[in-house]
């Protein structure tokens, strides 16, 4: 077991060895710990994918048999025949064929009706709640993943535990008080470009503790850079990805997962900076089509790439958006800011299937779907049961895990 894994577990449990877990540890941890040992230093990885602008969940996972859907969406209603049917009630958007394949293969779960208990229709405030993991919003100076990274940091193994991969400013979710969380736009950012041409002697000579720390960190960083280079050189990296920004970013993530350099948390984004591409108040149809197509194709390429490479069992991808949209379209062929929406979980060990019921289309709050699952329960699940990191300290309270991951 590598340092990082141990440290995550230690931070999670406040104990120094796995042996002393006793009955307080979740079953998952006890069952999977030996597996982690067997896999050597291959650790679980979380990939968070932000859909910026407020995704219209209703036109993403469509309740096509519900009359209210067609009634509220005179121009935006998607033709039933073109949907990719999940079951007799729900279907994926016509351009999300790839998600149906993922779903049928058991690599995709849909957590329905997720939202914030104190919904806010302002983009920045709503996004801040998701980033800070706090529905009261704005008191945090750090993001939820930044807090994880701060707590998991260990001078014994100063790996880069989390990165943002993408072209926009690093989202607040990754803001840490102490640890530097980098933004990268390609694997090149993790590779030492210039080799010195001769071997720098590995020195274990005299020097203070700080120098020893830097020597150890530096040789670690060089070794990891070489691992990334090897992956880039290798044929493995040439899987088929569509030509899109998100696909490029997820391909970068896949390469870094493969290189196995200790990054536990990746954050990516679709929709662009600013308010975001999912914010379709007018003429939503075409734009939303393009984004969902990009989403489905890119995520599927990513998942099957990792699957081919036998990496999928240690990867979990989770999508979120700051809010859903109003049930009723707004007269401009668009929708306004809503509340609850589905979150997607993709990976080799998601349970697959639907989690929770689709929210009612008639019992609304200011025209928006009501949430039945607090988004922090999903966060708690991925922290406690996927990364093996005690969620209560990060979320400022204890949230019950959802039973959505395979042991």
């Amino acid at each position: 077991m590598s340092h990082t894994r141990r440290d995550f577990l230690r931070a999670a449990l406040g104990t120094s060895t796995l042996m002393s877990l006793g009955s307080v540890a979740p079953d998952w941890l006890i069952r999977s710990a030996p597996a982690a040992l067997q896999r050597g230093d291959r650790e679980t990885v979380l990939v968070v994918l932000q859909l910026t602008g407020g995704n219209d969940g209703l036109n993403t996972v469509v309740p096509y048999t519900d009359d209210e859907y067609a009634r509220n969406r005179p121009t935006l209603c998607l033709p039933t025949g073109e949907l990719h049917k999940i079951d007799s009630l729900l279907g994926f958007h016509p351009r999300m064929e790839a998600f149906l394949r993922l779903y049928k293969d058991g690599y995709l779960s849909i957590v329905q009706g997720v939202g914030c208990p104190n919904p806010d229709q302002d983009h920045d405030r709503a996004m801040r709640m998701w980033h800070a993991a706090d529905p009261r919003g704005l008191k945090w100076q750090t993001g939820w993943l930044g807090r994880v990274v701060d707590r998991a940091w260990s001078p014994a193994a100063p790996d880069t535990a989390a990165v943002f991969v993408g072209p926009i400013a690093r989202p607040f979710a990754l803001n840490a008080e102490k640890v530097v969380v980098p933004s990268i736009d390609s694997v090149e950012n993790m590779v030492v470009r210039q080799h010195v041409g001769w071997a720098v002697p590995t020195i274990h000579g005299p020097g203070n503790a700080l120098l020893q720390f830097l020597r150890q960190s530096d040789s670690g960083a060089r070794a990891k850079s070489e691992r990334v280079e090897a992956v880039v050189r290798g044929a493995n990296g040439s899987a088929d990805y569509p030509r899109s920004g998100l696909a490029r970013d997820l391909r970068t993530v896949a390469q870094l997962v493969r290189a196995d350099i200790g990054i536990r948390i990746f954050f990516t984004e679709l929709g662009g900076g600013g308010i975001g591409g999912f914010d379709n108040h007018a003429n939503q149809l075409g734009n939303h089509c393009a984004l969902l197509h990009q989403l489905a194709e890119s995520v599927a390429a990513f998942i099957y790439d990792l699957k081919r490479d036998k990496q999928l069992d240690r990867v979990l991808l989770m999508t979120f958006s700051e809010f859903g949209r109003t049930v009723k379209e707004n007269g401009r062929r668009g929708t306004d800011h809503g509340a609850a929406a589905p979150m997607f979980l993709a990976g080799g060990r998601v349970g697959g299937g639907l989690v929770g019921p689709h929210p009612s289309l008639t019992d609304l709050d200011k025209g928006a779907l009501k949430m039945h699952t607090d988004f922090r329960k999903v966060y708690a699940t991925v922290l406690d049961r996927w990364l093996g990191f005690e969620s209560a300290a990060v979320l400022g309270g204890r949230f019950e895990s959802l039973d959505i991951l395979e042991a």
Partner: protein
Amino acid sequence: MASQLEKPHTSDRSERIGSATAAELADPGWAWAAYEPDARRPWNLALAGHVYRRAAFGTGWEQLHQALLDGPQRTVDKLLRPQADVEAFNRRCDESESIVAGSLDGLRAWWLRRMMETPHPLLEKMTLFWHSHFATNGDAVDNARWMQEHNQLLRSHALGSFNSLLQAISRDLAVLQWLGADTNHKAAPNDSFVRPLMETFTLGPGHFAEDDVRDAARAFTGWFVLRGQLRYLPQEHDETVKHILGREGNFTADDVVRIVLEQPATAHMVVRKLYRWLISETEEPSEMLIAPLAGSFARDYDVSRLVETMLRSNLFLSQQSYRQRVKCPVEFALGVVNALEGMVSATQLAQDVAGLGQDLCRPPTVKGWTGGRYWINTATLVGRHNLASAILQTGKPYDGKLDPWTVAQKHGCGAPESAARFLLELLLQSDLDPDVGDALVQDVRTPKTDSDDGPGATLRRLVYTVVTLPEYQLA
């Protein structure tokens, strides 16, 4: 000078910087007394380099060599009170600031250039210290003009009175906006400023109670940021009695600042933080060591005297301080630039040091940059390599403005080998394992690359290797 470079390297670091006894280091009287070189603890290039790393952003050979001649106290004199025309430089800088107004990225580049060019680097070093102390994130302020004024405010008090600085901070638009303290209604006292004031800017955790925060917030009622101006609305001020840190009265905002400054914890907190910035971040200093400085600081909050005491001290010029800090990204980058007497694109450099974790004008939280070992992880170390490579390359984006071979020749080196030894002294004061130093020099003598490479390229590679060594990451 050539003869100096031929001297064999000393490997024992403690010998290079002399060695103080444990009893001396623990004795405040000895520790804070002005350092006077003697046979046991001689003044040398290693210590001159140390002074310029901590009190400036590194320096070139000329100043380093001059420091050797001047001795420690005169060197510190010059850093505190530079002979150059600082006024003229400041005027020129302040005039050029209008160019950057409106953009935070423009502001951070303007500041970084100022750090590179200034004849008074200690002032910028302390401005950076206060930037991290009163950490204000310009993205949240969303007003580059206010951030610029904030930056100037920090500079104008950087070596002045902490009392005046704190007063100014309590009225600073950028700070109030960033902390969400822009409204203070009588009916809804806002603790967004007074909480970090007590917790982060002055007393520190454990030195105040929740009631102190609550009543301090009431004392701040009446202050608003309205239409880009700080306004006081008397009808919104809570005129009733408050209890703050054991005092009772109908206090105002200014009273709160005065009261926190009367607390001994405030001076202790600032002295400890400055100790970490100037002296060492590896060991928490004992209370005995801090007490005399804190006591003196609390009398008038004269920052300049505090800095001066530290920089002149035996402790600062001892193994207790030497190489006991990790260079922050700005120190890392400017150290290379200043040593090689170059001038590079500040816009590009500001972006690149941001990538290493130090985005000037955008500190991560109100607590500033924690720094130390937290600067270091796989990505930031790879980033330091790649920045060093880029800045030393002849091509884009830095256009090869740094030329080690020219610098070495200017200072009397006629051959690549002597140039290599010179560069090791310049950049690291040869403060590394002598075998490694010899191997590096040997490699310059027998380049493995194509013959048309020339000493220019060879020495660029040498500098790249040196500044990416673990040793170079220590300040």
